[in-house]
C-alpha cells in the first residue's frame, strides 16, 4: 500500500506523542491530556513493537524495538517497565542504529602472513578448536583462556564457564566486569556474605535523601537520574553529589561536595564517627544483626606480577571500633580530604536522622579504587550503624555499568574463582556444578588461576598462550595498556576475537569471528537490581555473524564435548537457561521460569512462590529469611552483617614534584564504554567526536591553555597529546585532570597504572600521577 511522506511523518509524530503520553501516564497516574489531542492516535501501524532490555548500561531499561520489513528502525521506552517507566536516554534511543554501521563484521577473518583473509565460519571454528587442542597438548590446559564481558548474555557466559571450567578443566575464565564492579562484589561478600544489592530501583520512590558517592549519574545512568529529579519535583527530595570533580550531576544536585582523590575512605569513617558521637546508632538493629571485624592493612597495590593477598578477618567489638574511629573526627578528616567538617556533619546528619530515608548510590568512583572493597564496606557501615538498609527507601545501592555485569558475570560466575553457584575453592560447590554439567568433579580445579590484570600479565609472560576474547575491547580498556598490547602480539600467542565491528582488539587477533548483536539473537541480561530480562531474536544477523553462545557450542562440540553441549540450534537458549536455573534452585537466588521472563519486562530474583523479591534480608519481603527476626543477613553463617574497621590509606601513585597532577579517567553520556558501537552512530559521534583533557580553569590560565589547545600528559608509563577542554562539560579541581577513555585514537590507558584493590583485583582508573604541559 502506498503511503505518502506527509502521511507517514504525521503517523510517526502521532506515535511519538502516544509514547510520551504513555510514559507520562506511568509516571503521573491520573494525568489527563485534552481529549482532542488523544483523538486519532495510532494504535498499531506497520511497525511491530517487541520488548527487550536496552543493549547499553546496567540500568536495564525496558525498551520497545520497532521492527519494519526485517529491520529494527525505532526504539521507545517501555511504559510497562518499572525500571524506566517509558523513559529512554540518548544511547538507548539510538541503540538500533548501532546494529547498522557500514563496517559490520560479516565474515570470519583469519590472519595469514600478516593480512586478514576471509574464510567460512566452519573453517574458522575448526581452526580455533585445533589451536586450543594444540595449546593444551604443548603447554597444558591452563595455557588456554577466555576473556568475556558484562555484555555477554547469560547463555554466553554460562556455556563459556561450562566449557572452560567444567570440560577443559581450567579456571582461566574472566570478564571485563572485573574492571568495573569486582569491588562491589567483594564489598557485598565481605559485609553480607552474598552478592548484589538488597534493594531495588523502587527505593528511589521512597528515599528522602540521595547521596551519590563519586557517581556521575546524570551522564552514566541518565534515566535513573531522571527518576531522582522527578522525585525532587514531586516530593522535594535532596540530592547530594559527593565527588572529586564537578560534573553535570553536581550542577543538578542540591549540594555538591568535593573531596580529594582516595579520601572518601576517611570521610566515610568520619560520618560513622559522627553517627556514634551523636547517638544516632540504631542500637537494637546493630546488636541483633551486626558483627564488627577488622582485616589486614597496608596490603600493597598489586603492581608486581604474581602479587597475592589474602585478608585475615578478626572479630572486634563495638568499643574497639569506636576507639578506631577517634582518628576520624570531621575536623581531622577535613585536613586529609579537603571536605569541611561542616559538610561532613551535614551528610552525617541526614544518615543519622531517623526520620529520613537515605539511598547511597555509587558505581566506578568507589569500585575502581585501590581500596575498592574497603570503601564499599565503609558505606555499608553507615547504613548498618543506622539500620537504614533493606527497607523501602533505605538502600546502599551499587550501580553497574554493563547490561549483564550482574546477570552474567556475577550470577553465572564468569570469574576465575566463581561457579554459577558458589566458588571453585569449595568442594561441595564443585560437586554441585559438576553434577549439573555432567562432568567428573575432578575436572573443575580447586584453585583460581588469574584475575584479569594477571591474566594479561600471564599472556605477556607466556603462561597463557591462547585467549578467546568475546564482546569486549581490552586493547582500549586495560590499564597500562602498552604492556598488554605488546604481550598479545608476541610470538607463540593465539588470539581469537568475537565482535561486531573492527576495534583495536580485533587488530591483535589471529581469528576474528563476526558476532550477532543484541536482538539479532535470543538471550537474557541481568541488571543492577537483580532483574533478569529476556529478549527474543527480532532480526537476522548480517552475513555469517553468529551468536557468541553458538560459537562456543560449536567449538565445544569440535573439542569432543557433544554430551555436555547437547543443545539444539532451535531451542538452545531455552535449554541453557533451564539448565542454568538449576544452579540457583533455592530461596536465596531462584530465577523466574523462562515463560515468566517472556511475559514480563524482566523479573527480580529471588523469585519464590511465583513472586519476585524487592528487598532482600527483610523478613517482610524475603522468603529466604528464616531466623524469626525482622532481618536476616543469611549470606553469613550466623545471619549477621559485618561492620568493618577499614582505615584511610593513600593511593598507589600520588602526585609528586615530577608528576604533580592527578589523572582521572571515565566515560561520557554519548558513548558506550570504548565507543565501538556508539562512535558508529553519526549523531553520537558528531556530538562527541574525540577524547579531550579537562583542566581546571585556573591551571589552564596559568599554563595559557585554551579549549582546543594541545596538551601533553606524561606519566611513568608514557605520554599522550589531547585537546584541552576548559570550563566545558566537567570541571576538575586544581591540579587534577580528567580524560574520557572512549576514543581508540587517543588511548588514555596507554599511560594509566595497573594498580588494583588487593581484595577485588579491580584496577584503579581514577588515580595516578601525571605531568601536564602545553604541547
Amino acid at each position, binding site marked *: 500500500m502506498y503511503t505518502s511522506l506527509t502521511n507517514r*511523518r504525521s503517523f510517526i509524530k502521532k506515535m511519538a506523542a502516544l509514547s*510520551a503520553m504513555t510514559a507520562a501516564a506511568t509516571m503521573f497516574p491520573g494525568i*489527563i491530556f485534552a481529549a482532542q489531542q488523544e483523538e486519532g492516535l495510532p494504535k498499531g501501524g506497520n511497525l511491530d513493537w517487541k520488548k527487550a532490555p536496552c543493549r547499553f548500561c546496567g540500568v536495564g531499561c525496558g525498551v520497545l524495538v520497532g521492527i519494519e520489513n526485517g529491520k529494527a528502525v525505532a526504539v521507545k521506552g517501555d511504559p510497562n517497565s518499572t525500571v524506566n517507566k517509558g523513559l529512554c536516554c540518548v544511547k538507548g*534511543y539510538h541503540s538500533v542504529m548501532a546494529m547498522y554501521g557500514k563496517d559490520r563484521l560479516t565474515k570470519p577473518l583469519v590472519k595469514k602472513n600478516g593480512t586478514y583473509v576471509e574464510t567460512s565460519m566452519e573453517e574458522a571454528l575448526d581452526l580455533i578448536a585445533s589451536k586450543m587442542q594444540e595449546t593444551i597438548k604443548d603447554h597444558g590446559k591452563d595455557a588456554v583462556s577466555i576473556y568475556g564481558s558484562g555484555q555477554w548474555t547469560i547463555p554466553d557466559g554460562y556455556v563459556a564457564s561450562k566449557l572452560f571450567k567444567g570440560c577443559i578443566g581450567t579456571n582461566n575464565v574472566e570478564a571485563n566486569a572485573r574492571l568495573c564492579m569486582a569491588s562491589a562484589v567483594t564489598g557485598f561478600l565481605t559485609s553480607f556474605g552474598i552478592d548484589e544489592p538488597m534493594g531495588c530501583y523502587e527505593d528511589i520512590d521512597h528515599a528522602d535523601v540521595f547521596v551519590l558517592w563519586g557517581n556521575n549519574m546524570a551522564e552514566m545512568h541518565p534515566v535513573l537520574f531522571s527518576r531522582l529529579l522527578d522525585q525532587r519535583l514531586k516530593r522535594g527530595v535532596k540530592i547530594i553529589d559527593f565527588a572529586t570533580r564537578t560534573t553535570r550531576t553536581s550542577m543538578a544536585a542540591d549540594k555538591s561536595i568535593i573531596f580529594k582523590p582516595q579520601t572518601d575512605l576517611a570521610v566515610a569513617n568520619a560520618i560513622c564517627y559522627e553517627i556514634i558521637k551523636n547517638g544516632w546508632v540504631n542500637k537494637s538493629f546493630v546488636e541483633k544483626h551486626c558483627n564488627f571485624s577488622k582485616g589486614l592493612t597496608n596490603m600493597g597495590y598489586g603492581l608486581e606480577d604474581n602479587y597475592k593477598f589474602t585478608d585475615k578477618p578478626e572479630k572486634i567489638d563495638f568499643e574497639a571500633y569506636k576507639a578506631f574511629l577517634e582518628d576520624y573526627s570531621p575536623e581531622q578528616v577535613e585536613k586529609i580530604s579537603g571536605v569541611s567538617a561542616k559538610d561532613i556533619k551535614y551528610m552525617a546528619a541526614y544518615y543519622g536522622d531517623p526520620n529520613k530515608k537515605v539511598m547511597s548510590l555509587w558505581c566506578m568512583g568507589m569500585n575502581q579504587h585501590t581500596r575498592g572493597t574497603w570503601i564499599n564496606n565503609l558505606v555499608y557501615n553507615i547504613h548498618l550503624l543506622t539500620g537504614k538498609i533493606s527497607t523501602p527507601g533505605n538502600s546502599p545501592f551499587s550501580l553497574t555499568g554493563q547490561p549483564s555485569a550482574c546477570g552474567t558475570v556475577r550470577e553465572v560466575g564468569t570469574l576465575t574463582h566463581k561457579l554459577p553457584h558458589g566458588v571453585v575453592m569449595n568442594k561441595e560447590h564443585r560437586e554441585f556444578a559438576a553434577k549439573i554439567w555432567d562432568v567428573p568433579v575432578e575436572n573443575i580445579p580447586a584453585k583460581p588461576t588469574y584475575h584479569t590484570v594477571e591474566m594479561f600479565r600471564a599472556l605477556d609472560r607466556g603462561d597463557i598462550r591462547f585467549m578467546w576474547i568475546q564482546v569486549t575491547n581490552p586493547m582500549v580498556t586495560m590499564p597500562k595498556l602498552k604492556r598488554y598490547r605488546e604481550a598479545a602480539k608476541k610470538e607463540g600467542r593465539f588470539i581469537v576475537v568475537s565482535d561486531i565491528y573492527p576495534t583495536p582488539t580485533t587488530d591483535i587477533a589471529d581469528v576474528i569471528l563476526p558476532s550477532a548483536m543484541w536482538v539479532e539473537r535470543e538471550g537474557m541480561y541481568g541488571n543492577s537490581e537483580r532483574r533478569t530480562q529476556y529478549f527474543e531474536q527480532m532480526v537476522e544477523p548480517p552475513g555469517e555473524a553468529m551468536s557468541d553462545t553458538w560459537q562456543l557450542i560449536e567449538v565445544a562440540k569440535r573439542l569432543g564435548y557433544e554430551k555436555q553441549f547437547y543443545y539444539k540450534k532451535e531451542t538452545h537458549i531455552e535449554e541453557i537457561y533451564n539448565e542454568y536455573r538449576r544452579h540457583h534452585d533455592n530461596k536465596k537466588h531462584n530465577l523466574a521460569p523462562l515463560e515468566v521472563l517472556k511475559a514480563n519486562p524482566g523479573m527480580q530474583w529471588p523469585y519464590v512462590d511465583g513472586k519476585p523479591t524487592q528487598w532482600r534480608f527483610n523478613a517482610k519481603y524475603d522468603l529466604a529469611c528464616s531466623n524469626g527476626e525482622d532481618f536476616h543477613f543469611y549470606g553469613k553463617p550466623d545471619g549477621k552483617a559485618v561492620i568493618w574497621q577499614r582505615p584511610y590509606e593513600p593511593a598507589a601513585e600520588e602526585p609528586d614534584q615530577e608528576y604533580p597532577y592527578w589523572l582521572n579517567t571515565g566515560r561520557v553520556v554519548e558513548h558506550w564504554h570504548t565507543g565501538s558501537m556508539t562512535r558508529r552512530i553519526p549523531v553520537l559521534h558528531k556530538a562527541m567526536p574525540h577524547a579531550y583533557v579537562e583542566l581546571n580553569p585556573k591551571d589552564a590560565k596559568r599554563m595559557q591553555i585554551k579549549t582546543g589547545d594541545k596538551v601533553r600528559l606524561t606519566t611513568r608509563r608514557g605520554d599522550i597529546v589531547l585537546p584541552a577542554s576548559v570550563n566545558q562539560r566537567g570541571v576538575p579541581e586544581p591540579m587534577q585532570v580528567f580524560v574520557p577513555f572512549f576514543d581508540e585514537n587517543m588511548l588514555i590507558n596507554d599511560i594509566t597504572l595497573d594498580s588494583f584493590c588487593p581484595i577485588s583485583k579491580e584496577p584503579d582508573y581514577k588515580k595516578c600521577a601525571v605531568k601536564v604541559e602545553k604541547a
Partner: protein
Amino acid sequence: MPIKSYLAHPHEGKKQELIDALLALKNCEVIPAENKDILIVITDTADNYQDEILKEQIEAIASLKLLAMVSGFNTPKNN
C-alpha cells in the same frame, strides 16, 4: 529526519510561559497535560544537525526545569 518526543517539566508557575516559548520554536509541537505541570514536546527536524540545534534551543528556555526524552524515530528521507 528525526522525530522525537519528550516530557518537559516547567519551573513552578511557569507552565504557560514554557508552552509559549516552545510554541515560538519552529519544528516543535506541544501537548500540555490538563491537570499536571507537564508538557509533551514533539520535535520534527530535517536532519540530526537541526535536531541538535532545536534541542539546545529547548534546553536554553528559562522556564524549563527538566527535559526527558521518551522516544525517537529516525525516518529515512524516502520513506
